[in-house]
């Protein structure tokens, strides 16, 4: 496996500064090259390792590209019906309040079919973490329009671009749930650059740590590319994301410790 030893005396156990966490299994992820799902999975796994809560964590996977997340994280997981992960996680947390419980959901899952479950878990203030991967599209089923698809953006069910008049507005679910008293921490992140990855990881960690406080739900949105759905190369897709998604879905904290961050 060692292909590029470079300077062979650097590659030594004592010099190791980064390697795949043990909380990720060895299974090759089925995601398209450059898809943000992989990075998001890894960050969650790293946080679980760092907090040493592998035995203390139950994850809930969505229906979406991340449906098979349970193949990659070495923790107990449940696969929820499309959109219902927050309801599933509610039950887990209520029955095992000392566990760390998270859902991992796409934008179709969380903001279309699962709208009611999302809003109500947030509103009840369930002490769980919700990781919300917003790639503006239904990745798994072949790139259909999602609630978060931008105005004018093409998808397989908006082949001429999203016509807001006909198809409705893109939905900022994250801003919406931040309005609810049951959410404690709401933030929007990305994973396309080293800096953004490091910030996103902090946010994920925060969402786990918050569960100890029992003050409500933490939601971390991760704006991500679906290069397949967008029909671009991964690198192009990340660029497009920065130029088009970020203006509408700006990364940054929205609600901290139960309070909205600097209202506009």
């Amino acid at each position, binding site marked *: *496996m060692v292909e*590029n030893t*470079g*300077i062979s005396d650097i590659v030594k156990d004592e010099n190791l500064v980064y390697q*795949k966490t043990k909380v990720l299994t060895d299974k090759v992820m089925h995601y398209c090259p*450059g898809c943000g799902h992989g990075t998001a999975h890894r960050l969650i796994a790293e946080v679980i390792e760092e907090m040493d809560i592998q035995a203390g964590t139950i994850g809930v996977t969505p229906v979406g590209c991340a449906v098979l997340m349970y193949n990659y994280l070495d923790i107990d997981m449940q696969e929820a019906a499309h959109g219902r992960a927050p309801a599933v996680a509610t039950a887990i947390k209520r029955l095992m309040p000392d566990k760390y419980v998270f859902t991992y959901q796409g934008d179709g899952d969380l903001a279309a079919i699962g709208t009611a479950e999302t809003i109500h878990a947030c509103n009840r203030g369930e002490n769980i973490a919700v990781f919300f991967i917003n790639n503006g599209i239904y990745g798994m089923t072949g790139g259909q329009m999602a609630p978060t698809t931008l105005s004018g953006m093409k998808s397989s069910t908006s082949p001429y671009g999203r016509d807001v008049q006909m198809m409705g507005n893109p939905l900022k679910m994250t801003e919406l749930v931040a309005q609810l008293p049951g959410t404690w921490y709401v933030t929007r992140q990305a994973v396309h650059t080293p800096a953004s990855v490091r910030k996103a990881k902090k946010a994920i960690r925060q969402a786990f740590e918050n569960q100890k406080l029992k003050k409500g739900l933490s939601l971390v949105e991760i704006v991500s590319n679906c290069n397949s759905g967008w029909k671009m190369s991964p*690198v192009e897709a990340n660029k497009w994301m920065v130029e088009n998604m970020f203006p509408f879905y700006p990364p940054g904290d929205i609600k901290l410790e139960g309070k909205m961050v600097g209202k506009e």
Partner: protein
Amino acid sequence: MAKSKGSIIVDKERCKGCEICVLACPTGVISLAREVNSKGYHFAYMENPEACTGCTNCAVVCPDGVITVYRKKVNA
């Protein structure tokens, strides 16, 4: 002044050639290989190994977590 020298190991069979790491490396260490792995992907490799500082940027952005990073302090 103490400087860092680094090196990465890419698990070439698991690399999907997405090029994200290439963009993320501040010192231009990484390129995609001309050859493909058994999955048909042009995998990443250290084209300029001497330039690596072991900053881990490439590894933290790699969606498939296939990069391992080593770093050593060296005297400049």
